[in-house]
């Protein structure tokens, strides 16, 4: 070994190898350090207003520091509810189609869904604006914005994600299960509904939760659709949402609102993280059982 290591060429190769390994390690450390710095700042700054009253109160015009973001939380929850209502049926049914069918149409739909997944979120918002809000606003100036339209935009963004996981999860169900059910003379729809879907349930729920986590923080599609609201409004009109509130407070010139932006960001991050982590535990529980 010692005689080999002393060969200049081999020595050079070993040094290069060590350098390469160090370079990759350093890059990984840089990436994680920067991202850790972002998160650390968020927790440090966000904790100031992070207390129960912040979540249960509306903005306070007399004493802004006592105000809260109740209307944004409620708005976000209702918008996300509508998004779920739109994306779950369309996503799951077309995911089932992907697993059941085979052929040209199937491939075209899959390709277009990939395309849909890559469209910038602001374009989806603009689409809802172009077909829904603008025609309405041309008849009734200044109206047309609604929480429902925002929910539709987020729902469209969730469809490809829900479809993809449904498709993948159904393919993971053992072939023998399909065959056994069909061999008993069970019709195709009963096989899907009572045999295949139940065994893929955990995976599909995980996919839906991850999709929800992804759209929960989307701001751009909401700009053109729900508009934002300083008060608690009905879902049929302009409502507020957490990401919109965060955007407004972050770009405001009032220091109190700036500080509240950090706490709003912390709230939003916690919602996203809790959804992602729950989804992961669900997958693990599903694998064990």
């Amino acid at each position, binding site marked *: 070994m010692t005689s080999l290591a002393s060969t200049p060429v081999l020595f050079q190769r070993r040094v290069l190898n060590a350098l390469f390994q160090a370079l990759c390690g350093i890059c990984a450390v840089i990436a994680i350090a920067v991202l850790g710095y972002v998160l650390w700042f968020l927790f440090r700054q966000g904790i100031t207003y992070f207390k129960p009253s912040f979540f249960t109160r509306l903005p306070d015009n007399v004493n802004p520091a006592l105000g809260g973001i109740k209307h944004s939380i409620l708005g976000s929850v209702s918008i996300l509810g509508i998004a779920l209502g739109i994306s779950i049926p369309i996503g799951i049914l077309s995911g089932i189609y992907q697993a059941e069918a085979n052929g040209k149409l199937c491939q075209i739909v899959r390709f277009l869904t990939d395309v*849909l997944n890559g469209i910038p979120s602001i*374009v989806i918002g603009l689409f809802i604006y172009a077909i829904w809000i603008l025609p309405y606003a041309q008849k009734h100036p200044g109206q047309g914005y609604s929480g429902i339209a925002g929910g539709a935009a987020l729902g469209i963004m969730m469809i490809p994600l829900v479809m993809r996981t449904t498709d993948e999860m159904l393919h993971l169900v053992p072939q023998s299960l399909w065959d056994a059910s069909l061999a008993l003379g069970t019709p195709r729809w009963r096989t899907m509904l009572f045999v295949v879907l139940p065994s893929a349930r955990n995976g599909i729920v995980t996919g839906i939760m991850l999709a929800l*986590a992804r759209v929960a923080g989307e701001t751009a599609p909401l*700009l053109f659709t729900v508009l934002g609201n300083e008060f608690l409004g009905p879902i049929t009109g302009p409502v507020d949402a957490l990401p919109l509130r965060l955007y407004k407070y972050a*770009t405001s010139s009032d220091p109190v609102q700036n500080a509240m932006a950090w706490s709003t960001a912390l709230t939003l991050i916690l919602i996203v993280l809790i959804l992602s982590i729950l989804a992961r535990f669900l997958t693990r529980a599903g694998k064990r059982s």
Partner: protein
Amino acid sequence: MPTIDDRSQSVSGSLTSGTNRKWIDSVYIGAITTMSLALMTLVLAIGCALLWQSMPAIKALGPGFVTGHEWDDATGKYGSAAFLSGTLYSSGIAILVSVPISICSAIFLAELAPKWIRLPITFLIELLAAIPSVVYGLWGIFVLIPLLRDKVMTPALASSTIGKTPILKSLLTGAGYGPSMLAAGLLLAIMITPFITAICRDILLAIPTMQRDAAAGLGTTQAETILKVVLPSAAPGLIGAVMLGFGRAFGETMAVTMVIGNMTPNTPDGRSVALFDPGYTIASAMANKFTEATPGIATAALIELGLVLFVTSMLINFFARSLVRLAARRIAA
């Protein structure tokens, strides 16, 4: 391994053999097919709707929309050239900064790191990819911008050596008051790094271990195995991953809007390579000008901006997906 074809044959076999509940099966098949067709229509409808509502602007402005760089409600001129170059510039900076770091991190995670460290880091990177862009924007406004202004821009503008160096002279200059192309590019880089790392790691893990073993059997070092064996066969996939990251940066709205300054550079053609100057991207222009757009041609021009973004991002994604698919096929073969 039973393939999907086997299954569909057995399924259609049971269908044609006929049960008395066959009509429910027809309803079931009808329902899933209809949903898929609806999904297909939806994607096409997005393009059509944008085209329909931007028609007034297309008719009034013609090709001037793509070639012009002025966006002025008063004179009725709407040109998107300055926004497009701003978008390409900021996404380009983001790619230049994030690609080396992402690929090296992916190599570290897939090839070099000890087993016990891989899982937690992968988990962390996936979580970071889920952080909303508006949160990155907030961090950009209050942490990144002051940092860049005090530690980079002010010293660079004061330095006399940079003022004489040929290329740096035109790059490291500009207004230098904070919101800038540099801030937008760096923030985008931070945002797309976890995204590109995650995809590259998956691609590297898909390369068969046999290739590495064969190389190691010839006595190569780990670095040589990765650089000469693993990376070449992963190349199309890695390029695809980088393009997907570029597509992300290209359409990113909120974080960019919050740190880019939203001003067309003050040059004759609305373009500037000065990193410290504020700028505009297509998406940030849409988000910013939307609230003040009057009904009619101003709104239609904004929707046409959306159409431009839609078409370009579709092209980028199409090429990126084809490359990733090509890589998968090559690995499988």
